[in-house]
């Protein structure tokens, strides 16, 4: 009973959906800030808990910033499909005739622009707090640019699977954190290598490979997950 796409090409549907999601996000600006504030609070807790020793902080800075980024992403992920799922928009997307993969991809891109990009933009401040050497800041930002989209992409599969649950958010972290392990390892290795003045481009290459792979595969898995949740 699938209707033919009403009008326009795939790219038009993609950008229309992207614009709608961004517009919706910016209408609720306070909610938009929650993950960002969360990120700031979590990072600021580390010096309080560990002590303000600049060398120790610099040593753990990549790990702390990245783990805070993982936590902030998972917090924001729940909103990726939630409102559309609850008010029935998701069903309309399915019967619109446009591939669900494309719809998932548009929503993932919107999610990254809203939740991932602020992490990248805030990272200089976080690096300053954690006393990260300034030479490593560029690498830190690069790993975040390459890595946070992967977090949104892989996370979308978990959201798709847990969306029909009332308290899906708690389960979501259990589902996605194990899958985030390689990204955490590679990204922090890159930053640590650069602060030790070692070559780090191979790590960025691995992250790029991960980004391309997850960009190719994750939207399909997310669409399959959404279909199961909608059934």
């Amino acid at each position, binding site marked *: 009973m699938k209707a033919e796409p009403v009008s326009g090409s795939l790219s038009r549907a993609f950008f229309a959906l992207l614009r709608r999601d961004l517009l919706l996000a910016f209408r609720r600006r306070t909610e938009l800030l929650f993950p960002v504030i969360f990120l700031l609070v979590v990072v600021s807790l580390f010096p309080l808990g560990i002590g303000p020793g600049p060398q120790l902080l610099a040593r753990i800075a990549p790990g702390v910033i990245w783990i805070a980024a993982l936590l902030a992403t998972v917090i924001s992920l729940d909103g990726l499909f939630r409102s559309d799922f609850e008010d029935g928009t998701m069903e309309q997307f399915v019967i619109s005739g446009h591939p669900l993969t494309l719809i998932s991809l548009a929503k993932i891109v919107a999610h990254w622009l809203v939740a991932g990009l602020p992490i990248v933009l805030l990272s200089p401040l976080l690096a300053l707090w954690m006393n990260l050497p300034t030479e490593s800041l560029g690498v830190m930002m690069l790993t975040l640019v390459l890595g946070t989209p992967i977090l949104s992409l892989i996370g979308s*599969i978990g959201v798709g699977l847990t969306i029909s649950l009332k308290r899906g958010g708690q389960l979501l972290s259990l589902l996605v954190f194990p*899958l985030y392990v390689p990204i955490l*390892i590679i990204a922090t290795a890159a930053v640590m290598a650069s602060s030790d003045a070692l070559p780090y481009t191979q790590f960025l290459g691995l992250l790029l490979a991960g980004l391309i792979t997850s960009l190719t595969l994750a939207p399909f898995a997310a669409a399959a997950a959404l279909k199961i*949740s909608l*059934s």
Partner: protein
Amino acid sequence: MNTTKTVKPRKNPVVMFIHKMGSPPWFYKFTGKFIPWFWLIFGVLTVWGLYLGLVKAPADYLQGESFRIMYLHVPAAWMSMLIYSMMAVMGFIALVWRIRIVEILAMASAPIGAAFTIVTLTAGSLWGRPTWGTYWVWDARLTSELVLLFLYLGVIGLYNSIDEPRKAARAACLLALVGAVNLPIIHYSVKWWNTLHQGSSISLTGGSSIDASMLWPLLIMAIATKFYYAANLLTRTRVSLLEQDIRKSWVREVLKEKS
């Protein structure tokens, strides 16, 4: 010439068998005959393997008696990985062909695999205490085994959170598949993370070749755990089938026969 044959295509017996196995009552009856034998073979092999391993095999020249934990630890580690791959393969079959029995089989595998992973981790840390001097080391294999446990817990958690059993099974099967795609990446990144952060860490096997008197019990235990998996898996699947089909006539017949 062969007109009679082309008019009446007979199904391949293997295909027929697979079709029959997809039917819950048939599956229930058929596997019921095997389960006691699987338990029996498991029991005999375990007693034999543990006797050879714990009593007969000589103590290791380097690790002393503590190496005997290997006879529990190594087969459990093998099973933890084998069961995850079995679960992913069955999950794929379940998602593509939507066979209900396979969905249940995949989901019944998850708790068994998680149990083997916990046994592996526990036995490994008990072995680590006398050998490495500590219960836990962020060794590459320990770490990836821990992540494997988290993956199992995710599948079990998702399956138990969704009320409708078939939807739950399909969602969890998809998660198992995603995990299976990630598992090699996780494994190698952890392995490589370990060498990067710690320098050369302690090798688990030490590279020394293993004597036949020590190897045989290990192989026997490895086969015994396979039979344990088969018996446990089929028992769990049969119980799930009875639970899910409680209102169907074949279950009523089965229950009548039992009482």
